[in-house]
């Protein structure tokens, strides 16, 4: 029954209390919600927990969902806000570590052998660099790069103006580039020089640290 329903029908059914319909929505959106949480929070366990809580929040707020908006945008907005809240709560519990600059926070964590292996992975490295950005910068980058949000949508989500979002995205890129140029001391596989990171896809093989260096100079 539910499998054959389109998204809006699923949403309507879920709003009227059909749990199977909501389960179908979970199955459909587990991946984007999980990936947004993962890039925002940086750790797989946190992303799993956050995803669960996001879907629970969404279920409880279904009656407030405006059906004229895309469901995906609404759901990812909930996820984005939830991740920001979670990061801020986490920071309150990590006051001593937060007193350090971001690269020192990473250096202060002792990487275990498993982490060392994971850091070789491009995806993990991107996540790690994202964690160096302030959460509001990180959110803009994540929504723009991986969820195809337009400036207007991000502005509506964050309550900022479109021009503020544009400049935030620009600053976020510059900061990313600076971090990549500086590298992350104490982290295996960190970018120490131009040759250490290359884009792992065809046609996109420029060393990114070079990009970082150039941007940092500009």
């Amino acid at each position, binding site marked *: 029954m539910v499998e054959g329903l389109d998204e809006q029908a699923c949403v309507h059914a879920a709003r009227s209390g059909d*749990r199977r319909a*909501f*389960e179908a929505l*979970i*199955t459909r959106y*587990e*991946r*984007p919600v*999980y*990936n947004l949480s*993962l890039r925002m929070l940086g750790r*797989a366990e946190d992303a*799993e927990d956050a*995803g*669960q809580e996001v*879907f*629970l929040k969404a*279920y409880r707020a279904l009656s407030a969902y405006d059906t004229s908006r895309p469901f995906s945008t609404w759901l990812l907005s909930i996820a984005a806000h939830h991740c920001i809240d979670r990061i801020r709560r986490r920071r309150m519990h990590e006051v001593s570590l937060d007193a350090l600059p971001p690269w020192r926070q990473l250096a202060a964590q002792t990487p275990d052998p498993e982490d060392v292996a994971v850091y070789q992975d*491009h*995806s993990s490295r*991107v*996540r790690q660099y994202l964690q160096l950005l302030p959460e509001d910068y990180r959110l803009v*980058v994540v929504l*723009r*790069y*991986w969820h*195809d949000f*337009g*400036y*207007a949508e991000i502005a509506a989500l964050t309550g900022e103006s*479109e021009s503020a979002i*544009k400049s935030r995205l*620009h600053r976020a*890129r510059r900061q*990313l*580039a600076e971090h*990549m140029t500086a590298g992350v001391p104490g982290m295996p596989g960190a970018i120490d020089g131009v040759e250490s*990171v290359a*884009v*792992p*896809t065809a046609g*996109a093989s*420029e*060393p*990114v640290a*070079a*990009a*970082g*260096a*150039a*941007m940092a100079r*500009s």
Partner: protein
Amino acid sequence: MNMLTAWPGGDEDHELSDEHLAGLDRWLKADLDVDPPAGYASRVIAYVDAELRRVPPWRRALMVIGALLSGGVLIAWTASQLFLDWHQTMQSTPMAAVFLDVASGVAVALLAFAPPPAWFGGRTALYGLAAAAVAVLWFGVTVAPRGLAQRAMLRRRP
């Protein structure tokens, strides 16, 4: 054309003229979405179900307080019926009787619908039986004697 230029609202061409920034964009874009862990959707569904069934802490606390208060009334009312012979007095003050009956009824209802306390070890059926036993006891001790007293009074009337 870089993917970014095709984005909605994108007036990033001036930025993209910088080939280095384009490199950074490509590096970020090359990070593809990962699959959630196996069985993640099922875990999320189970979590949502469990959370929706769970009684929120504030409501649980309210129920405990309500149960304690109305339980106190129930005990006082029962004791007064048994030892102070109030069921005779109550016939002359029907409003008081109604008030105490309602309070006792609330106590029994709270017992019946409250979640089993931790020391009950989650044995919901046993807890339900205990609540039903309390309800029967309540009826037997407080309502039945009043009915009997009323009948006795009627019998005594000339």
